[in-house]
């Protein structure tokens, strides 16, 4: 009996020495992003941006050391949930962040509610995500934001007949719905709504169908990796010469892939919240620092990660280092700041992002392809929520 007590005492002592007071002085962020698999570029961009933010702003906030724990979920929701649970229970993280795809964010949402741990969405773009838990805030974008804005732009520019072509999964359905509703409400017409299987090797038959419908414009949403293949087949088939405009949310002309897409992509008009060529001083500094550190161009996923870190840092400053979930989320609501993409804020009602949406056209600048912004729609809230 005595011996057992002694062992327990020794164990307790060991525990005290093993975890010195630093536990109180460290804020841990569990960063869950896909670093492998088809969405790996998302993870790579966010991880790079998060590291860049910490290099520039230090690792200490409100007297606490901020530690980022990077985990790879391969964009598989089951993994996301398991990793989030491990991070919350074992590593006692104060934030979970990242989430490359919508299903991953949805899988982790209930955990955020149960553990009262703020969840920062840095990438996934379906509207419903922030409604799944009162502890979710988003620093990326929603597809509804860019789809509605490009529809407004199209209507203004005399595009009345459109064909939509989207990948057959949740964000694709979102993009299609918001674009079509807006076009119809504005007196336009959707001649044909085409859904393309997500793992689709060849766009030929779908493009032929779109061409035969003879629309003014083709609205396209495919995951960013497929954008290049799509645009090349679009021009190969001569749809550009047939006078069909190619429009869509900015995922198609992702900055990460744009340099390799070839001249076929020039002239594509997209609506999005970030372009690496955004003409602000802050963005120029950001792009220069990013390219210098990692040797590739930052894309819209990277600013999601960068601003996500900013939101966490600022919330901690506001609470004076208090890591209580409720206080942190309260601090985040309504926060406004200047991001490389322009002025942004967190909507106090929905915890979703409010930001400028830019209309851009792909052009060649100094021998490189860029999305050149030429029109701005200011402070756009997520139409997926204001519609209700």
């Amino acid at each position, binding site marked *: 009996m005595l011996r057992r007590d002694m062992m327990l005492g020794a164990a307790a002592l060991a525990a005290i020495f093993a975890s010195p007071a630093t536990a109180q002085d460290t804020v841990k962020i569990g960063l869950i992003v896909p670093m492998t698999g088809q969405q790996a570029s998302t993870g790579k961009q966010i991880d790079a941006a998060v590291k860049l933010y910490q290099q520039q702003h230090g690792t200490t906030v409100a007297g606490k050391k901020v530690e980022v724990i990077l985990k790879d979920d391969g964009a598989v929701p089951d993994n996301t949930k398991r990793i989030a649970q491990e991070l919350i229970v074992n590593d006692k993280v104060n934030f979970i962040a990242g989430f490359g795809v919508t299903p991953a964010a949805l899988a982790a949402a209930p955990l955020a509610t149960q553990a009262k741990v703020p969840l920062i969405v840095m990438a996934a773009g379906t509207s419903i995500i922030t409604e799944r838990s009162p502890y979710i805030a988003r620093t990326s974008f929603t597809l509804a934001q860019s789809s509605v804005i490009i529809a407004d732009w199209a209507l203004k520019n005399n595009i009345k007949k459109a064909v939509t072509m989207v990948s057959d999964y949740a964000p694709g359905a979102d993009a299609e719905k918001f674009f079509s509703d807006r076009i119809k409400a504005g007196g336009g017409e959707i001649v044909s709504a085409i859904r393309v299987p997500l793992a689709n090797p060849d766009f030929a038959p779908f493009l032929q169908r779109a061409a035969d419908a003879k629309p003014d414009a083709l609205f396209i949403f495919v995951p960013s990796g497929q954008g290049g293949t799509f645009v090349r087949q679009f021009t190969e088939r001569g749809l550009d010469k047939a006078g069909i405009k190619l429009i869509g949310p900015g995922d198609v002309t992702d900055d990460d*892939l744009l340099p390799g897409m070839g001249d076929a992509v020039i002239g594509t008009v997209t609506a999005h919240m970030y372009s690496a060529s955004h003409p602000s001083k802050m963005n120029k500094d950001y792009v220069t620092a990013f390219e210098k550190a990692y040797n590739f161009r930052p894309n819209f996923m990277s600013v999601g990660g960068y601003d996500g870190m900013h939101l966490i840092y600022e919330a901690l400053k506001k609470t004076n280092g208090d890591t209580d979930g409720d206080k942190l989320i309260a601090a985040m609501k309504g926060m406004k700041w200047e991001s490389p993409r322009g002025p942004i804020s967190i909507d106090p009602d929905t915890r979703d992002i409010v930001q400028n949406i830019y209309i851009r056209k792909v052009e060649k600048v100094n021998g490189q392809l860029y999305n050149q912004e030429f029109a701005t729609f200011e402070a756009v809230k997520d139409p997926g929520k204001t519609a209700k």
Partner: protein
Amino acid sequence: MLTILFDGIAYGMLLFVVSCGLAVTLGLMNFVNLAHGAFAMAGGYITVILVNRLGLPFLASLPLAFAFTAIIGAVFERTLYVHVYTKSHLEQVLFTIGLVFMSVAAVDYVMGSQQQFVSIPSYLQGQINFFGVGIGRYRLLIILVCGLLTVALQFALASTRFGARLRAAVDDARVARGLGINVNAVFAITFAVGSGLAGLGGALGAEILGLDPHFPLKFLIYFLIVVTVGGTSSITGPFIASLVLGIGDVAGKYYVPQFGSFVIYTIMIVVLIWRPQGLFSRAVAK
């Protein structure tokens, strides 16, 4: 309508070039090589490096893609595959699928996970209008190259001495050895050519199918369907099967887009119920 048919043929031809190497190893050498797509991917990446980084003309890089992939194939065959020829099919499957995962990770590490695009010369871009039918120039090139290859392969297997040796080596390796045929060399050459063809297919297909590190996994299903439907005992079987599947896939996606992605599987199921050995196969399996 005719444009759809044309696109279907081009797509089918592409499927054929990539998967005929698999038909050869699986049908003739009786070896299950799931890593076949990895060789196709290698061909695609070799073309990307040659054309985009070294500035070689696209057409000149195609034979090089074939040659390099064939060399890679030969090296792998001599060092790795030779040990599993006599093992059971399960072991072959496990070994080759392992190779696939290794190739995916290796390419991801070296080239990055993003999509790669080959710079196609301008004379291969766009469409020719031929009596009202829009014909993509690049797709026309695919049909020409693949058509020539099919004829050459059929000739090589059926009418040359090497073809006869290969068939003999497959039917009974021991007797073939007894007759003085160097079975190992025959297998090695066949494997290298099969890999080279896959590489050529990958090089041609990068423009249409897209090219990223997950290429071997994404298209494994398609290769297997072609070989299953076509049967593995000849070149004509997979050839006809590729055309049927290519046209069926493209036409299905055009006319019934809601079910487009299922058409190819439906064709496979129907054919297999009707002829379990594949369209063109000897009635009795070995």
